[in-house]
C-alpha cells in the first residue's frame, strides 16, 4: 500500500491541479475538480504508471484519495 500511495497522490495532484498537501488535508475527491473527465484522466494515468487495470465500477465508487489508494494497492498486490 505504501508503494502506490505516492503515485496516486502525485497523479491526482497533477490532474486536479492541487498540491499534494491539500489532498492529504482534504481527501474527499468531490471537494476538488473531480468529474467524469478528470476521473478518466486519472484512471488512464494510474493504469499506465502502475501497470494495472481497474474495473470502472470499483473506480467510480472511490470517493476519497484513500479509497483510490486502497483500490490501486489491492490490484497491485493481486498482480
Amino acid at each position, binding site marked *: 500500500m505504501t508503494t502506490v500511495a505516492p503515485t496516486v497522490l502525485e497523479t491526482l495532484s*497533477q490532474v486536479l491541479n492541487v498540491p499534494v498537501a491539500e489532498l492529504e488535508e482534504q481527501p474527499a475527491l468531490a471537494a476538488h475538480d473531480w468529474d*467524469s473527465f478528470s476521473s*478518466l*484522466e486519472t484512471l*488512464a*494515468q494510474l493504469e499506465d504508471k502502475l501497470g494495472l487495470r481497474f474495473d*470502472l465500477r470499483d473506480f*467510480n465508487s472511490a470517493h476519497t484519495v484513500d479509497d483510490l489508494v486502497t483500490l490501486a494497492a489491492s490490484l497491485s498486490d493481486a498482480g
Partner: protein
Amino acid sequence: MTDTRELVAALKAAVDEHTAPGPDLRAALARTDDPALLRRAGKALTDLATGSVDVADELRPVRVAVLATCTIGPYEQLLRATLVGAGLLPTIEPGRYGGFEPALGTAEFGDPDVVSCLLDESYFLPGDWDPTDVTALGEHIGRRLDDLRALLAGATGASSATILLHTLPLPANVRDSVLGWRDRTRLARTWHQLNADILGLAGDNPKIAVVDLVSALGDAAFAARDDRLHRYGDLPFSDGALTVLADEVRRFTQAKAGVSRKVLALDLDNTLWGGVLGEVGAAGVTLGGLYPGNCYTELQRTVARLRAQGVVLVLVSKNDAELVEEALTEHPEVLLRPDAFSATVVNWSAKGGNLAAAAESLGLATGSFVFLDDSAFERGQVEDELPGIAVLSAEGDPAHLVRTLLRHGWFDVPELTGTDRERPAMYRARSRRTDFSGGFGSSEDYLRALEIELTIEPATRFTVPRIAQLAARTNQFNLTGVRYDEAATTEMSDSPDHLVASFAVRDRFGDEGIIGAVWVDRTRDTWRVGNLVLSCRVLGRGVETAIADWLVRQARAEGVSTVEGRFTASRRNDVAADFWPQAGFHATDDEGVYQLGTADESVRPDWITVHERSEVLA
C-alpha cells in the same frame, strides 16, 4: 516525470505571462507522443492569450472547430497541445454533444480555418443489425454516407472552412459478431469501401480533406479503443488514438497555415552515408548493398523524393571540400549528386554559423529549415544558436532514418504547385545570381543585365493553390496580413467586383515561377487593394514597383479614378512599410491608407518587361 512536470510548468508560466511558449518548449511538445503529457500540456495552454498581438506575432493564429459523433473529451486538449507544438496559435471551438448533424448541415461553426470531425462507427451503423444479412447492412452504410455527403455539401456551400474527415477502423466487436468467414470478408470489404468513399470526398470538393486514420493507427503503438471509456463516456477512441488523430490534423492545419518547412539541411558522415569520409576515403563509406548500407541509400532516395516535391536541400558538413566533391560525384551508390543541393557548405566552422550563411545566400529564414545530423554536439550547437530551426537526430540505428525524417510531416503542403517542384532549381539559380552581381558598376546596370520579365495573369484554377499558398506563407512582403485561402481566392476571382492576379518573374538565370499575388476590390470609382504579397526572393529588383504601376494603368484603362492601398504593420513586414510611397502613392488622413489618382503617373522601373494576359479585365 520531472521533465513532464517542468514542461507543463513552463507552458503555464508562458500563459500566465501572456507570452507565446518559446521555440524550445514548442520543440519539446512536437517531439512527444505521450497522450498524458499532451493532455496536461493542452490543459495548461487553455488560456493562451489568443488576443495578444505579441503572441499572434510569434505563433500563427488558427481557428479550429471540432464536431463529433461522440464525446469530444480529451481530443480538444490533445489537439491544442499538438497545434501549439507546430508554431500555431489555436482557438478551438468544440461543438455540442449530440449536435453533429445539425451543426454540419447548417455550418453552425461559421468560418474557421478547419473543422475537425471526430467520427465513430455509430454514425454509419444502425443500433441493431442482422448478422445474416451483410448486404442490408452495406445498404444502410451507403445511405448514411449519402446523408453525410448532403450535410457536407451544405457545410462547404455556406462556410469557407476546410472540413477535415478521417477514415474509420472497423471495430473488432462488429467484425467478430459475424461468424461466417465469407460474410465477414464481405463486411470488411463493405467497410473498406466506406473508407475509400470517405477518402473520395476530398477528390470531389476542395473544401474537404481526409486523414487516413486507419493507416496511421496501424503504425502507432496504441490500442484504438478502451471499451470501458467507450461504454461509460461515449469515448470510442483511446487517448492514444486521439493523439494519432490530433497529430494528423496538426499536419494538415500546419500545411494549410503555411508554417511547414522549405529547407532540409543534411549532414554527411553517418547521416547520408555510414562512416567518416576523412577516415575511410570516398570509396570506403557505407552506402548501398545490404544492411546497414541500404538504410543510407533509402534515406538518400527519400531525400531525392522530397527534393522532387520542392524541398530545398542544403549540405552542411565538417569535411574536406574536395573529398566531399569526389565522393558525391564518383561514388556509384550516391543518389544525391552535387547539383541536388541548392547550397553546399563544407568546411570546419561551427554548423550554426554555416546554416545561417546558407539561409542568407538562399534568402530564406533559418526558421524554415529542418536540420538532420547524427552528432549530439552539432545538434545542440545549432539548436542553441538558431532557435526556431527544427533539429532531427540521425543518431542510433540507421534503419530509423527515413521515419525520423518523414514522420512529423515537416514539409507537408495542402496541394503541390508547379512552383514547389521548381523551387530547388530556382534557389540554385539564385545563388549563382548573387555571384553574378559582383561585376557591375551600378545596381541599375545589374538589374538591366538580368533581363527581368514580369508576367501578370488573372487567377485560374491552376494558379489558385499557389496564390493561396503565397497568402499563407508570406510574412515579410505582406502588406495587410489578410490571408485569403483557396476558397476565398476562388470566389473573388470568379466575381466581377474583385480582381485576383498572380505575378511570375523570370530572368536570364531562370524562372522563379509565381512569386506574388494581389487581391483587389473593384468599385466604379476606386480599386482597393485587399492585400499584395510578394516572395522575398524577388525583392530589390523593382518588381513590386512594376506591379503597382501595372495596377494604376489597369484602373486607368477601366475609367477608375483612384487606386487605394493599405499597409498594416506586423512584427515581420517592415520591408514593405514604404512600398506605397515609393510607388508614388500619397498618404491619406486614415493611417496606413494610401491613394493615387489614375490621372497621376506612377513610378515605372524601365528594366522590367511586363507581359500580361488580356483576360485580366474580363
